[in-house]
């Protein structure tokens, strides 16, 4: 099966906790976030071939990360993860929480050592609708959180801050919700620091001119 992807970063120090890693950013996303252009060049490759390329290029790193806005919207992502698993590298998948079914399969098949869930907005229908255009996503995100609460690998839940709508002010409340669900940690990162968001020219300009400000938590 073909996998559509945007790019490969052969070195990241942040994508996998504590390990130098390579990241492949898959294309496709169910959301239309207000700051995201959704665009950029998309390439495709057979899942197995892409996996080989990643493994061969990973001589100096210890982990591989399958990321992107939502890699699991592509069914072929499972094939890619399957090809990468068990090759002596730590493996992580990033998700927006929109596709719990595929994430569940990933976990059942014991493919990954780590999962990172990016929350696009406070867990509220209206807020999700304002940021992503998909208010109904909240139910899927809750489903994903429930799945992950029993995941025994490395788990990261990160709030993808998007001022002026999703700001740090929402973090205490969000933390409480997550704590009630059994999570003990919430990270936060501005969307422009996350590394995988293709920004619109307007949002890029706003970041450049300081229109978006704020400390990373």
């Amino acid at each position, binding site marked *: 099966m073909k996998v559509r992807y945007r790019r490969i970063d*052969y070195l990241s120090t942040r994508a996998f906790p504590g*390990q130098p890693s390579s990241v492949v950013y898959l294309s496709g996303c169910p959301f239309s976030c207000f700051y995201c252009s959704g665009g950029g060049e998309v390439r495709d490759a057979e899942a197995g071939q892409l996996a080989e390329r990643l493994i061969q290029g*990973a001589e100096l790193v210890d982990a591989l990360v399958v990321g992107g806005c939502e890699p699991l919207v592509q069914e072929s992502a499972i094939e890619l993860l399957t090809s990468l698993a068990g090759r002596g590298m730590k493996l992580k998948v990033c998700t927006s929480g929109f596709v719990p079914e595929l994430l569940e399969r990933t976990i059942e098949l014991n493919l990954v050592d780590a999962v990172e869930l990016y929350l696009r907005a406070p867990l509220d229908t209206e807020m999700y609708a304002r940021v992503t255009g998909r208010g109904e996503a909240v139910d899927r995100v809750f489903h994903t959180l429930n799945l992950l609460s029993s995941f025994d690998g490395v788990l990261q839940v990160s709030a993808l801050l998007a001022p002026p709508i999703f700001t740090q002010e929402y973090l205490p409340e969000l933390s409480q919700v997550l704590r009630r669900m059994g999570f003990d940690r919430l990270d936060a990162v501005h969307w422009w620091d996350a590394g995988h968001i293709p920004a619109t020219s307007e949002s890029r300009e706003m970041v450049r001119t300081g229109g978006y400000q704020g400390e990373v938590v």
Partner: protein
Amino acid sequence: MGEAANRVHIVKASGEIEVFNPNMVTSDCQDAGIDFWTAVEVAQEVSKRIKDGASTREIQQETLRVLYAMNPEAAERYKRYHSMYVRTSRNTIEAFDRKKIVESLILETSLPREIAENIAREAEAELRRLKLEFISAPLIREVVNVKLLEHGFEEARASYTRLGMPVYDASLLVEGASRDAEEVHRAMAANVLKEFVLLKVLPLSLADAHMKGDLHIHAIEAFATKASSCVHDLRYYLLSGIRGRKAAVPPPGDALDALLLAVNLLRYGMGSFSTSQCLDYVNVFLAPYLRGLSDAEMSRIARLLLRQISQLGASCDLWVEYGVPRFMSSMEAVLPGGEMDGTTYGEFEEEASSFALAIARAYASGDHLGMPFSSPRLCFRLRDEHWDRHGYSTFLQLAHQAAAAGAEHLFASPRGNELQAGTYTLPADTAVGAAMLQVVTVNLPRIAYQSGGSDRRLFELLEDRVRLALEALMLKKEVIERRVAAKVLPLLDDSYASTPILLGVGYVGLNEMLMAHLGAELHREEALGFARRVLRQMYSLVTQEGEASRRFVLVQQLDENPHRRLARLDHGIFAHRVAVSAERRGGEVRYTPASWVSEDAELPLAKRLEIEGEFHRLCHGGAVSVIPLREQVPDPVPLLKLSRRIAADTQLRFWKYIREVGR
């Protein structure tokens, strides 16, 4: 009364005092067109009237008064002739005197007197035609230079011309907000020296090659005055102190003395080295002075060392080893007071490790305002033998923490039994210091543009350019040896004979050379083989020159960004070809430095470093690979793991991390 008592002294415009000679008045009058007998009569009368201490101006006024009384018409002629004044380069205002042009032409250009007089006469006529009351010394030179060129004396013109800079450029420098006074002075001096080197020191072929962009002569303004860079062997100075014309520091007796000696060494070295200086194994050599100090005292010494060096305003590398490397453990140590009693550096293992840690900690906490140090650059070697040592991980963790935060720390991994002195790779049995006299970088893409696709032509041109670079280096060696003999190079004067000397041939744009010649970039298999041929050819041409202690080496020199200057020049000449081969970013063209893989190449890091590491092996004058970190806040823990992998699994000798957010 004796004859001396009758002498009248006059004061010249320059302030000099000399005995009055009536012939000066006679000559002055004749120059103005007055007949000999009248002139003699006037001189006699003036001699009677002037008093001891009269100025030349007063003598001229007296002459004029005498002339008006004798012959008003002659007086008018004299007045007209002497009404042109010169603002001299000695900051005086003097009456114009053609003879001075004649004498300076003979002195500075070696032209025969007859020709010099002819040129001076024509220049004077030209100047008088302009009817200026005041003329400046530079204006006279400009007019004389035009006359020299009109008569075909091009070489004489090159010797006679002035060096300097346009008033407009000087205004920009002085009024530019970004430079302090010292920087303005340095920039202006550099400008004059650069012109001097291009005009008088380098033969035309080399000056043209630099200006046209076949080559880049690094720090060209210092070509006639200083060596390029140096890795100091600190032991030499700990043993004997610093002995120079302007500085004398005795062998240090304690830690603070030793620290000040190291700093003074760098300060003093600024007079000898134009580009950078380096203190290698600094914590090892200072370890004997630290015995018995508490951790707090050691931290203070480390902080002082960094702060003092940061205030020098010079580019400086400090290499810190964690403890004493095995190859140094049996070296006899220089002890406080310059003593040597058979104690070895191996016996100061603990002090060397603790001080290394103290330096890394002091650097990580920044200057007294908490700001990162811009100088010195800290450099770290990863050695397998150190991994068992307690504290080594903490030490490297601190180094990588600073690197992740933006410090341009340099990391190194010595291969086999190579000896590294700073970024130089030396034979194992040599000293731990060396001096690089000069680096000349070859513009590789231009060779490809000029070879028209022919391999044979490309290698011929490559050989020509390398030989041209070697010619410049040999000339530099002569220049330095003359200055060493004249004892005007502090630090090199005494040690030149015993210091390993390097002369470096650099190169730029291997990637673009391959693109222009083969249509494929360095990381493509079909181009990599050709790249190996090019570098091997250069290596062979360069290393067959010189001798054991005076070695010609390949080097990847990035100071002054030759990859930008040479790309700009090529863009002006070979625009249609450069358009496809040079990177264009934000309106500027630049080549890929040295044998780096293009940063745009989609290549795994391991492959990139494998290619670059292959060429590090050939560059004994230094080669550094740069690993970009494209995250806002890189994590130091994975970074340290990566460094360990680089040291273990690649052939890279030197690397550094740079933060490149937003790409």
